[in-house]
């Protein structure tokens, strides 16, 4: 519409803010960037631009530092933090013409799978009252699903893009570890964190990814690899593509209807000419336990920077420096964040390091090796994204492990550093279901191609809580 000049940039941005207002009950946004966005849009109307994403309103997860725009990471600790610089990925998107219209709600420090740990309150899934959008990129997923924005940024440490994408019926991609710079992303678990796009379609994800990726000297883990045009192979036929099915994923424990949806998608891929091959990932069942050692360990180290001294929240009237540290942290962090810091400190402490941290890193290598062997036989690996559909807020009870198992299918790709995405593939009980496609290292194009061929021959990605998009 923008290109055809059916609507001005300013009208587009104004409409977006109207939609934010009428969807206020979703609580998808923490901070809005209205004045700057309108100004940018007006500038674009006056000086039309050929930039690839010129004028496209984008919602940014509130985990990316945005210069002069409050960045909270969903935490009381950073409820007054205004970064003096922007994350590389934000700069990349804005240099491509995107307008960052606001910052989306999220689980505190990206720790959660339901967006119930945010200091700024739960986010609602537009598919039903009281339903969670998933997490941690819950605000981004909800905003795209509700049609407020065409695309949003997310981050994924153990499934935080793919799981909410699945629960909200949108498409989300976590690239290969290192594809997108982590500079300016507030760190949770540095060896697992990766940013990525969330949008309606695989094609839109590819367009976003083209701009988000870059080699960044400011991030030592940023890949110095050729960045292809991710849209190039979208329309190639998947005839002959070998899709792996993981023998060890026991689908009999899932909801019957969710399994039916998965089986239907398999048949659909067969009709498109793909071939299914059973593969074995013998150590995959240890992914969640491995993650819940590695991620808390890295988190306890990363979050030690929040000490109430240089930025972020400081307690009132500290009696000495120790008191300042302890009270600022205890008041600033929520329960789930504290829990993970404690687990991390425990597994890293003298006497337990070898039994837990080193052991988990060894198992992590076994899991990665399993994938390396599997990708000798197949092009992509397919599984459900989640165990079921969106659940009611509060329904997971007080046992944190139940929530941790929500990421059963998504965590392995983070441990191995592989690209993976979630694609809507059905509706069960009036709620969307997603399937996951995992690719080999640097092969985002291949999973995007598989997703695009699915989306050009089905309409699950066009279903919204307000009806189908034509």
């Amino acid at each position: 519409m923008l290109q055809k000049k059916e609507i001005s940039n300013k009208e587009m941005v104004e409409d977006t803010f109207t939609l934010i207002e009428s969807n206020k009950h979703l609580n998808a946004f923490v901070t809005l960037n209205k004045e700057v966005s309108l100004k940018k849009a007006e500038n674009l109307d006056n000086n039309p631009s050929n930039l690839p994403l010129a004028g496209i309103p984008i919602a940014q997860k509130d985990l990316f530092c945005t210069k002069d725009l409050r960045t909270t990471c969903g935490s009381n600790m950073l409820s007054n933090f205004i970064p003096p610089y922007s994350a590389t990925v934000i700069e990349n998107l804005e240099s491509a013409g995107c307008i960052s219209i606001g910052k989306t709600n999220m689980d505190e420090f990206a720790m959660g799978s339901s967006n119930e740990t945010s200091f700024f309150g739960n986010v609602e899934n537009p598919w039903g009252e009281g339903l969670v959008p998933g997490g941690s990129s819950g605000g981004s997923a909800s905003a795209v699903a509700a049609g407020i924005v065409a695309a949003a940024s997310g981050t994924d440490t153990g499934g935080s893009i793919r799981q909410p994408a699945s629960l909200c019926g949108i498409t989300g991609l976590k690239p290969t570890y290192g594809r997108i710079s982590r500079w300016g992303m507030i760190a949770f678990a540095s060896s697992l964190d990766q940013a990525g796009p969330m949008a309606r379609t695989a094609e839109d994800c590819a367009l976003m990814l083209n701009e988000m990726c870059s080699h960044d000297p400011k991030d030592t883990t940023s890949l110095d690899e050729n960045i292809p045009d991710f849209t190039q192979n979208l329309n190639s036929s998947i005839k002959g593509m070998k899709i792996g099915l993981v023998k060890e994923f026991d689908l009999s424990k899932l909801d019957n209807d969710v399994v039916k949806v998965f089986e239907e998608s398999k048949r659909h891929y067969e009709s498109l000419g793909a071939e299914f091959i059973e593969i074995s990932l013998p150590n995959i069942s240890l992914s969640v336990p491995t993650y819940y050692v590695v991620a808390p360990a890295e988190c306890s180290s990363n979050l030690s920077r929040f000490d109430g001294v240089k930025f972020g929240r400081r307690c009132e009237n500290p009696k000495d420096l120790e008191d300042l540290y302890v009270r600022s942290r205890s008041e600033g962090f929520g329960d789930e964040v504290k829990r993970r810091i404690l687990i991390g400190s425990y597994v890293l402490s003298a006497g337990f390091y070898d039994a837990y941290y080193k052991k988990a890193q060894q198992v992590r290598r076994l899991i990665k090796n399993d994938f390396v062997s599997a990708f000798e036989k197949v092009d992509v690996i397919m599984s459900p994204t989640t165990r079921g559909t969106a659940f009611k807020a509060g329904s997971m009870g007080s046992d944190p492990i139940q929530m941790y198992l929500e990421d059963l299918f998504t965590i392995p790709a983070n441990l191995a550093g592989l690209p993976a995405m979630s694609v809507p593939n059905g509706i069960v009980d009036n709620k969307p279901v997603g399937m996951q496609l995992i690719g080999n290292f640097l092969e985002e194009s291949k999973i995007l191609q598989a997703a695009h061929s699915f989306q050009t021959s089905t309409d699950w990605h066009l279903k919204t809580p307000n009806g189908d998009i034509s």
Partner: protein
Amino acid sequence: MDKKTVRTIAHLSRLTFDEKNEEKITNDLNNIIKFVDQLNDAETSDIEPLTSPLEKVARTRPDNVTAENRKEAFLKNAPLSNEDYILVPRVVE
């Protein structure tokens, strides 16, 4: 993990909580540790730990000055500061 261990790791983490939460936190942590104990099922005696999926040596860059002095911008985020420094309670009497 008993309450004493939990207090020790809470101290290491510079965190504190009220006594009424101590029981619940101890319980949660024990459950999580019991859950991750499954890792003992894996045979890992000759396996090199994997610290990062990239396994590349960190690159160095030339030691050139690239950052400018942005004292004011950074002091603006400090909870307490004077014109030049971030302030904390007195450490040395």
